[in-house]
């Protein structure tokens, strides 16, 4: 037996536990596909509903408020609608790269997907965090001015903007630092798997 045949024979002699029953696998595959589709649908519906609810509530508050506070509420309400519009318009790419292509083309498609997700996360501060944050700051400034007019300056007026800032800073860190780092790790793992001199990743 020559070396090549021995390798092939060794390879093909791998034992494995039970062949999957076709019908069971069909059910499993259908379940996984449906679960994924349903998860996407539920997420989109939740985001839209949350945006509508937030926009409606804040619009109501804006009607009752005056001056800067009203402007703040309007900015937050508009932000909620804007975020969902942005997510639906730009945030959703193809879920997966089409695997029916050669290795190089597939690798390029995967890398593009990673780059797109990283770009989206890195821009989160502009389209996701900043609009409502600015709205909240305007609203807080309006409240502070209103309270100052009537001679009251409760500590809440100073503390709330600090809380908002910490909250949005955490959101920024979660997206732009933590999530981007995770994606970059996966991206470089893909690169090393595909291009590395002697990768042994998986």
């Amino acid at each position: 037996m020559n070396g090549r045949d021995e390798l092939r024979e060794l390879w093909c002699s791998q034992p494995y536990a039970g062949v999957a029953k076709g019908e069971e696998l069909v059910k499993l595959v259908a379940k996984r596909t449906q679960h994924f589709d349903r998860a996407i649908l539920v997420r989109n519906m939740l985001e839209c509903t949350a945006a509508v609810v937030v926009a409606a509530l804040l619009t109501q508050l804006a009607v009752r408020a005056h001056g800067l506070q009203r402007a703040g509420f309007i900015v937050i309400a508009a932000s909620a609608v804007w975020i969902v519009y942005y997510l639906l318009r730009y945030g959703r790419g193809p879920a997966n790269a089409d695997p029916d292509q050669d290795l190089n083309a597939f690798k390029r498609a995967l890398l593009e997907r990673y780059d797109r997700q990283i770009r989206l996360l890195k821009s989160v501060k502009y389209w996701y965090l900043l609009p409502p944050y600015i709205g909240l700051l305007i609203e807080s400034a309006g409240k502070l001015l209103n309270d100052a007019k009537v001679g009251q300056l409760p500590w809440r007026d100073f503390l709330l903007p600090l809380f908002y800032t910490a909250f949005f800073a955490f959101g920024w860190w979660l997206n732009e630092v933590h999530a981007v780092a995770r994606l970059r790790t996966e991206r470089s793992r893909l690169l090393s798997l595909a291009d590395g001199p002697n990768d042994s990743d998986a």
Partner: protein
Amino acid sequence: MPAEAITQPAREQVKDANRHDTFLRLIAQYDPALRRLAAGYVWHGADREDLFQEIAVGLWQAIPKFRGDASERTWLYRIAHNIAISSSTRLHHRARREKTMPDAFDRASGGPDSEQELLRNEKRELLLEAIRGLRAVDRQVVLLHLEGLDYSEIEEVSGLSQSAIATRLSRLRYKLRKLMQSRETREL
């Protein structure tokens, strides 16, 4: 048009039935090969099963798009390898360090009952380990070759020219043998 309205659901049903039958046929035909392929990409038994299922999902989704431009076999291997590559980057957390004990996947045939069988199992493990240490493109070429695809079929799957495949394979066969030998010696 009323006629179309009536035939549309029927057409969908036929399409679904075709997809279902094609899927069952492919799985029945390629189940062992797809499981071997999974073993060439991930160490852990549970990961292999996950990967096998991901490949099955990928095939299920790809069947309606299959136009017959390539042979069914090369089309299937192309999808399976690509899914294996993208999934193995995510399945990395259950890393190769966890592989230590051979799992049910490896022992299912009843286990080694002779010294020869034991030796064979060890050699197979060494081969798997050596294959998993290759770059993705090399791994793909070797796995396809070990599955019995000829150069033109490997060309269809990988996009490499036949001469590049021939050169690569001769280098890789040598490299695999060397790797196996060196690991065998190290283990002794």
